[in-house]
């Protein structure tokens, strides 16, 4: 058997022995949806659905940023969206929630498969220099002091190079490729459960305002302080080293070879 039979991937299987505080009291698994994020968007304002987690075995119209699509053959990936309502303002929550997702997905992959993943600023998940998982977070203010977040996660599991669109073959990778073997039937279930558990743990940490630990974990999973990066900004490309994260302006602090410390914003530069 080379692929996990998709009929074993059920909500009951995922939630078995799952103990969480915020997410996953209800888990739904769909055979096919347009996009798991769009599904949650229609009900994101409803307090009743706070904590809902949905998985899809197949997406007809998976979404990435800036209108890009997230393509995955049926049953090849974890395609998951979670809804969480958080107290606060969008500008205070956007930075921490972005890091929460990155740390949770990275930890889930490391614990389930013992593979060397690395976070790229702020929340892409790479392995062997190729993209293994992507995160798309959408938010909407639902009350003066409350924001609803949809945490969309896509993890490549069983794809071989031929399964990726030609333009992504050199830049995308799957867990099966990294491991060099097909996945066992239950491994997708283990990973799905672990993703929810890690997300829940990180959310709890965020609610406890333990931002220092979150920052520390992110930096560790990004290769540690001093991790070399290549920065492209305003048509200039230069080498730098990661120093820290600054929550105050949602920037990554890096030091350039001249010793200057730069605050890099996600929307003004590319960091590899």
């Amino acid at each position, binding site marked *: 058997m080379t692929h996990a039979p998709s009929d074993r991937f059920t909500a009951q299987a995922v939630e078995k022995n799952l103990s969480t505080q915020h997410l996953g009291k209800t888990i739904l698994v769909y055979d096919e949806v347009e996009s798991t994020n769009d599904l949650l968007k229609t009900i994101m304002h409803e307090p009743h659905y706070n904590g809902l987690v949905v998985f899809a075995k197949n997406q007809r119209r998976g979404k990435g*940023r800036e*209108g890009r699509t997230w393509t995955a053959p049926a049953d090849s990936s974890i395609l998951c969206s979670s809804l969480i309502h958080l107290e606060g303002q*969008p500008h205070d929550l956007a930075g921490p929630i972005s890091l929460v997702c990155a740390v949770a997905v990275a930890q889930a992959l490391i614990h389930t498969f013992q593979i060397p993943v690395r976070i790229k600023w702020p929340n892409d998940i790479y392995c062997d220099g190729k993209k293994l998982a992507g995160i798309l977070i*959408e938010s909407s*203010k639902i009350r003066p002091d409350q924001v609803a977040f949809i945490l969309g996660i896509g993890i490549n599991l069983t794809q071989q190079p031929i399964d990726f669109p030609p333009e992504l073959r050199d830049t995308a990778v799957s867990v099966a490729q990294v491991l060099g073997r097909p996945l066992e039937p239950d491994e997708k279930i283990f990973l799905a459960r672990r993703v929810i558990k890690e997300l829940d743990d990180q959310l709890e940490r965020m609610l406890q305002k333990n931002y220092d630990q979150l920052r520390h974990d992110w930096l560790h999973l990004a290769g540690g302080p001093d991790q070399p990066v290549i920065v492209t900004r305003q048509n200039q490309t230069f080498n730098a080293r990661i120093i820290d994260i600054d929550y105050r302006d949602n*920037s990554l602090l890096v030091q350039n070879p001249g010793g200057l410390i*730069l605050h890099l914003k996600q*929307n003004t530069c590319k960091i590899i």
Partner: protein
Amino acid sequence: MEIQHIRDLIGLMKENELTEVRIIEGETRLLLKRGSAPVDAPMTLAPAMPAPLQIATPQAAAPAAAPAAKPAEEPGETINSPMVGTFYAAPSPDSEPFVRVGDHVHADTVVCIVEAMKVMNEIKAETSGTIQKVLVQNAQAVEFGQPLFQIKPD
């Protein structure tokens, strides 16, 4: 204080590689800061200053030294960005914009997305009225509090 004086001071700062000069002369207070990095690069762990050069003058000071008028001066009410990020007028590049000039919006109408830290934040009008003007370009970087739309309230 004459503009030429300020220019001279900036020249002296460059010559002597000074990053900050404060001058108080009677009613006039002047603070000049310069960074040596190409763009939004501060020297310390403090959050980035929006501009490498700042001129602070008291209310009555010469208007010549004031920065150019910002879109904040637009008449009527505005819908402002609640965060630093990137403005998107539509849900995706090939979609119709959330709103156009002339559209009537109410408090819950989504008017745009501002992306920060890869979080796509829906921005709502939070008031009802008619969109009169879109004040920023699609995919433009926006600051906290920057007016995005001019709106004529009902």
